[in-house]
């Protein structure tokens, strides 16, 4: 047997056996997980099951185009936040401050001064304020984590408290109503029948996917999250990269703030409450490893859709909030178990 053969069958499996077992499992399990297919299969099934329940229990309303758009619109804001969160978690971090950053960005972008500027010139001033505030908060997070060496959980927890407090101070705890019509018109509008908000979500998700899976930046994110020391030894500037990841998450929060402003026509320090939990839940359910090194944007999008569809189905069925909670817990568990089963089956 030649050298070549021996390794091709990679590792321990003898060649004869291999040719037998090969087709059954073309890739190893880990590989499959990464490709996202096996894992996403479970998510798809979970989502489809949810939809079936939706159709069965509230068919007339659930399956309408308007309702689908409602679900997507609801998914859009938290979806954008979750995309940013996917990057941070894949890179081995966590960001608890997303909700607070959304609040701060929304407040800052709707102050009288900013609105005046937007009214006088263009709504782009509001948007860029929100993005800048988000990115700046993210930058602080990133610096604290990468250079201050504060564990991400604590650093972003501190940001959570500070950003929300700052938002309250700036807004004086008032809900700031947006009076710039051009802003509302643009973001409240539709494009080819699909609301602008949904377009933004799609765009962010697509850009996130490309960035994570098709660029050097994405590869390095996996490396930093999977084995920071190896990444450092390979000459990657781990600290700088970490900062970039948090800035990215902050930027996503800025975008989400703009979307939320459009949805609610307000900026408020109460926006984005508990987004951190929602986003992390969506990311983790989607199959991104909480410990870093493995992440999937597609999974995250599915995670977000599952949660929003769940809420929608519950509401359509007029379920009591308490029963919703209990059911939600049970459904999460079942969905994850199902995923695992499917992922396992599809590989063995």
């Amino acid at each position, binding site marked *: *047997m030649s*050298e*070549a*053969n*021996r*390794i*091709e*069958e*990679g*590792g*321990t*499996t*003898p*060649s*004869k*056996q*291999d040719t037998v*077992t090969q087709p059954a499992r073309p*890739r*190893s*399990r*880990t*590989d499959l997980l*990464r490709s996202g297919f096996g894992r996403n299969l479970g998510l798809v099934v979970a989502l489809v099951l949810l939809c079936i329940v939706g159709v069965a229990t509230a068919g007339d309303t659930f399956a309408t185009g308007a309702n689908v758009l409602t679900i997507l619109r609801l998914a859009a804001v938290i979806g954008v936040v979750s995309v940013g969160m996917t990057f941070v978690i894949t890179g081995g971090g966590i960001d608890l401050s997303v909700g607070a950053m959304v609040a701060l960005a929304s407040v800052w972008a709707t102050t009288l001064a900013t609105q005046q500027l937007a009214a006088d010139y263009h709504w782009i001033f509001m948007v860029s304020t929100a993005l800048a505030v988000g990115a700046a908060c993210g930058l602080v997070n990133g610096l604290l984590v990468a250079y201050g060496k504060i564990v991400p959980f604590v650093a972003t927890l501190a940001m959570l408290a500070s950003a929300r407090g700052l938002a309250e101070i700036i807004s004086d705890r008032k809900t700031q109503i947006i009076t710039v019509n051009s802003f509302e018109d643009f973001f409240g509008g539709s494009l080819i029948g699909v609301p602008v908000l949904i377009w933004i979500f799609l765009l962010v998700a697509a850009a996130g996917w*490309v960035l994570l899976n*098709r*660029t*050097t*930046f*994405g*590869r*390095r994110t*996996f*490396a930093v999250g*999977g*084995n920071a*020391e*190896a*990444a*450092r*030894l*390979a*000459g*990657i*500037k781990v600290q700088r990269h970490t900062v970039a990841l948090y800035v990215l998450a902050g930027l996503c929060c800025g975008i989400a703030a703009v979307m939320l402003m459009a949805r609610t026509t307000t900026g408020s320090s109460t926006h984005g409450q508990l987004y951190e939990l929602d986003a992390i839940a969506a990311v983790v359910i989607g199959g991104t490893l909480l410990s870093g*090194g*493995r992440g999937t944007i597609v999974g995250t999008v599915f995670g977000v859709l599952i949660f929003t569809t769940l809420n929608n189905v519950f509401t359509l069925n007029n379920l009591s909030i308490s029963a919703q909670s209990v059911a939600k817990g049970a459904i999460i568990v079942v969905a994850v178990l199902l995923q695992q089963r499917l992922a396992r089956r599809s590989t063995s």
Partner: protein
Amino acid sequence: MTDLLNMMGIVKEFPGVRALDGVDLDVRAGEVHCLLGQNGAGKSTLIRVLTGAHQPDAGMIRINDEPVQLNSPTAAIQRGIAAIYQELDLVPDLTVAENIFLGHEPTRYGFSRTHEANTKARSILQGLGHPEIPTNRSVGSLPAAGQQVVSMARALSRNARLIVMDEPSAVLDPEEVSNLFRVIRGLTESGVAVVYISHRLEEIREIGDRVTVLKDGATVATGLDARETPTKELIQLMTGRSIEYVFPPRNEMPDAAPVVLDVVDLSRPGEFAGIGFEVRAGEIVGLAGLVGSGRSEVLETVYGARRAATGFVRVDGAVLRPGRVQDAVKAGVGLAPEERKSQALLLDEAVFKNITVSTLGRFASSGFLNSRAEREAAGKLALELDVRPPGVDQPVRNLSGGNQQKVVLARWLLRDCRVLLLDEPTRGVDVGARSEIYALIRELASNGVAIVLVSSEVPEVLGLSDRVVVLREGRAVHTGPAQEIDEHQVLDLVMEGSAG
């Protein structure tokens, strides 16, 4: 010939340890420069200083007679220094190609050019003699040997002038090693310098040009001729004493010794099939085979870490429930696994806690631990095995690779096992400690422990075992007394499957 690299008076301190205490190293272009030294002598630390992973506390580094500051891995990479680290520095979830080009990915406008990366990776792997490793497979799913190849490919991908290899052969079998040497020769012919670290003196003889010996963080000899310097002298330099590098004599096996471990018709689809052997009290059975032949899997299945598809394992006549490690441990089976970092060590825990983790019950009364007793027991073993530095309170993470291996062994030595399964027990262990481990294994056997030994070094298997089982592609192709077979026959067996 001018020196490509001069390192002078390098000092590196860790809190409480002076790992390097004035090391000198000169490397010429186009040579294979071997670094020798006991476990903990400072070889890996020196390498990490050279690659910018550690900052030296004192000393000077010159490349082509030009003083340089290597204050980050990037700086070293830019100066043409690449390394294969002792502890594999791969990202398990990235593909082979992505790992190879990590840090210098082929890109266009920031987008990774996967196709180009794959093509380039394939050609590098081809050059290494492994065109068959799929470049789009995640590295985590490759066996250790495959990962080692990827690590090598990564070093080559940088077009470096100086490549450092820290124990690259530890997980490779003989044929792989000769393949590696072919690659190294190719490199040196084109003027690349190689710094080669290994505990196997035969390899140094075969590939090395010059040798530098480290002892206790200082250079004790440099510029020795790799081929001519007598082994005795090298060992004397490294250890400060002379060691007979031979296997201790076999014990007489009393015929009446009872069968302790009985493995019957064990199989796991895709890994191995129909494996059966028995080990009597006081007997050492060696499993020989190439990397990937399924030896580790057999051991892990016997131990219950993997669940057998068919067959069963008996210890002292009682069948172990399959897939239950606790049962095996309770029955007195111990496993020193192959991958010490991921499978055996609690890296952040103190040495003594690592040693006693499987024996906690012994140091506890109604659940409360007596850590003084723990320290004493662990300390005694650490002394016996010459773990350096000798304190048992430091975290295992700070130990050198070989010393970590000794800690793993100590764990099971403490446990008075009935059956000991040793998977590559001497991987990365220096000559001095190695002969001590051999003696220890023998001594254990003479105390009635049944031992199964897996090693990629055929002489080791043959020299230590009473009987050998040769595995090929997950099947036993030969079983017989170790004295009746020699290295060439074993190699023939594992390659061809036909008894020579």
